[in-house]
């Protein structure tokens, strides 16, 4: 035990040390699969963030494309070139580069959708758990109803409705617009899980005496929810959020694959798979296979992280 106040830097170092020394860090280090998953996920983030620099080609700039390079197989196959590591598609776009840009879109959509549903679900969950009454019943019934519908169906419906509404207006329904619609559609389909988990955690926390102590001195409800209850309910949200990120990426890919997602001019991984599978039977398997592998790997890595986080944060399994 150190007496006296810690200096500022000392406190940061202390926090870092405690973090690295925590049970979470220990369980992380002990688990090579999780470490691999984390590295893979980080590589994706890195690749997506710096796609502009890393990607050997700029696949969506028509001026750099030449049809002469179209439909080249991966480099290690007869007829392939090392310039195009994973081959090219029918317009001569480098598959590796499209995967980097595609991952970027998939991650952006996935993250934004998860953040959207977390904000919505946690907000509704905390308030309904805290206030109770008819407000709680309404919110929870709505969540129940929505949970009976498959989330992909909800997303499809929302997407369709949004397009129908905006089709008549002069808002441009271009790729950027499609992304917003997708984020909204995927996000709205996932809020009920957060709302349920956070509501029940809120019910538990609300009954604890530290909340009573805050109420006795007259701390306003919103502040109690924000400062006391919310931080104590975030553990499960983090876990669901991570697993949900994988789900959101898949949902986005599915929607794009079905053609209601992101248009081929700025393809996400899902769009790449859809566009590519048309060439599957004519022999250019690489156009669809590599984006599909990239998607599987990303989802798998994120999912493994989420599963580990759930177990590591669950005191009963420690």
């Amino acid at each position, binding site marked *: 035990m*150190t*007496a*006296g*106040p*810690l200096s500022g830097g000392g*406190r940061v170092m202390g926090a870092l040390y405690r973090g690295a020394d925590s049970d979470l860090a220990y369980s992380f280090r002990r688990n090579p699969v999780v470490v691999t998953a984390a590295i893979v996920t980080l590589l994706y983030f890195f690749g997506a963030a710096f796609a502009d620099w890393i990607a050997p080609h700029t696949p969506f700039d028509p001026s750099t494309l030449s049809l002469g390079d179209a439909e080249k197989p991966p480099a290690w196959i007869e007829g392939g070139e090392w310039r195009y590591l994973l081959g090219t598609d029918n317009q001569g776009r480098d598959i590796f580069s499209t995967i980097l840009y595609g991952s970027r879109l998939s991650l952006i959509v996935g993250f934004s959708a998860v953040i959207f549903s977390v904000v919505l679900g946690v907000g509704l969950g905390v308030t309904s758990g805290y206030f109770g009454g008819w407000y709680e019943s309404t919110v929870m019934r709505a969540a129940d109803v929505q949970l009976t519908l498959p989330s992909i169906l909800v997303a499809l419906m929302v997407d369709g409705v949004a397009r129908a509404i905006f089709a008549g207006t002069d808002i441009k329904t271009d790729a950027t617009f499609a992304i917003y619609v997708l984020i909204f559609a995927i996000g709205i389909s996932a809020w009920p899980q957060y709302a349920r988990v956070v509501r029940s955690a809120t019910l538990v926390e609300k009954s*604890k*005496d*530290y909340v*009573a*102590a*805050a*109420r*006795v*001195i*007259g*701390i306003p409800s919103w502040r109690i929810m924000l400062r*006391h209850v919310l*931080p*104590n309910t975030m553990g499960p949200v983090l876990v669901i959020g991570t697993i949900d990120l994988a789900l959101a990426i898949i949902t986005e890919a599915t929607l794009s694959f079905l053609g209601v997602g992101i248009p081929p001019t700025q393809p996400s991984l899902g769009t790449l798979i859809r566009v590519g599978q048309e060439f599957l039977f004519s022999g250019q398997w690489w156009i669809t296979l590599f984006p599909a592998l990239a998607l599987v790997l990303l989802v798998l890595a994120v999912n493994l992280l989420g599963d580990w986080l759930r177990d590591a944060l669950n005191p009963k399994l420690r």
Partner: protein
Amino acid sequence: MAEMPLLQVENLAVHFCLPVPVAERAMGRKPKVLKAVDGVSFAIGKGVTLSVVGESGCGKSTVARLIAGLYRPTRGRVAIDGHDVTAAKDRTRAIRRRLTMIFQDPQASLNPRWRVRDIIAEPIKAFGIAGDARETGRQVDGLLEQVGLAGADGEKFPHEFSGGQRQRISIARALASKPDLILCDEPTSALDVSVQAQILNLMRDLQDELGLTYLFISHDLAVVNHMSDRIAVMYLGRFVEVADAAALFAAPQHPYTRLLLETIPDLGMTGRDREAVAGEVPSPIDPPSGCAFHPRCPYADKRCRTERPELREAHSGGVAVACHAVEEERLPPAPAGGAADG
């Protein structure tokens, strides 16, 4: 009647409606009502400790929570220093500042994600007691030292402390707004006896030093004996006996008080053969008719089964008892002996 009591409670009651499943409600079943507190009245003067004792579920905590404003009373009145604070809107900041609460469970009464100094600073900030952050920090350090911890402990999180230390932190938080009245809901029943002694001593020292008034809740008669000036014995939502501590232990009146005194395991009683007292604690949802204690009472008669006894001043002044037998003077004199004040 010279001085206004610090806390005055009149006929206070709260009835909880237990939820009934929708299906049963549709079939016309009325929700069950649990009368957790059913009409208690008392007053505490400045600097005095009133204890409430009784078995689990009799409504002790609910009384404290009603006074703290955590539940809205079904009926009755709470006044602090003459100000009626029954309605939430009458609880001004100035009033809230004068009463705080200490809870039973040292695990649950401190937010696990807050540093101790933030926990103790919360009331200081809420009531604007300190001018600036530096002054707040100084006050927090002072409070920590007052309860026997070090200023540096403020940097830690609650889980880094033992149960007794956490209860000290709770006490420091309760003192932060410089209150007059502290509602103590079983502050030591989760602690070991050796730690309990430390906390009880601390609470008494603070009372002497700061002139605090305690409403002290406990199920342990020995602790209550040590802490209180006056004692209220509670049974199923009502007070059955209120008396000065010495009088209660020397001459318990109500049959339930006598039962409690007989059955408390006590250090001085090595090798005693206890009489197994018959009966179970009845359910507060469906309390017995008349005197709620009659199914367990050896002196119950017909009147007890039908008519509820009211809390009345007994012949020996300063003692109030709710019992027909006491009123009719058909109760044998209080058992002297082990329970008597030595």
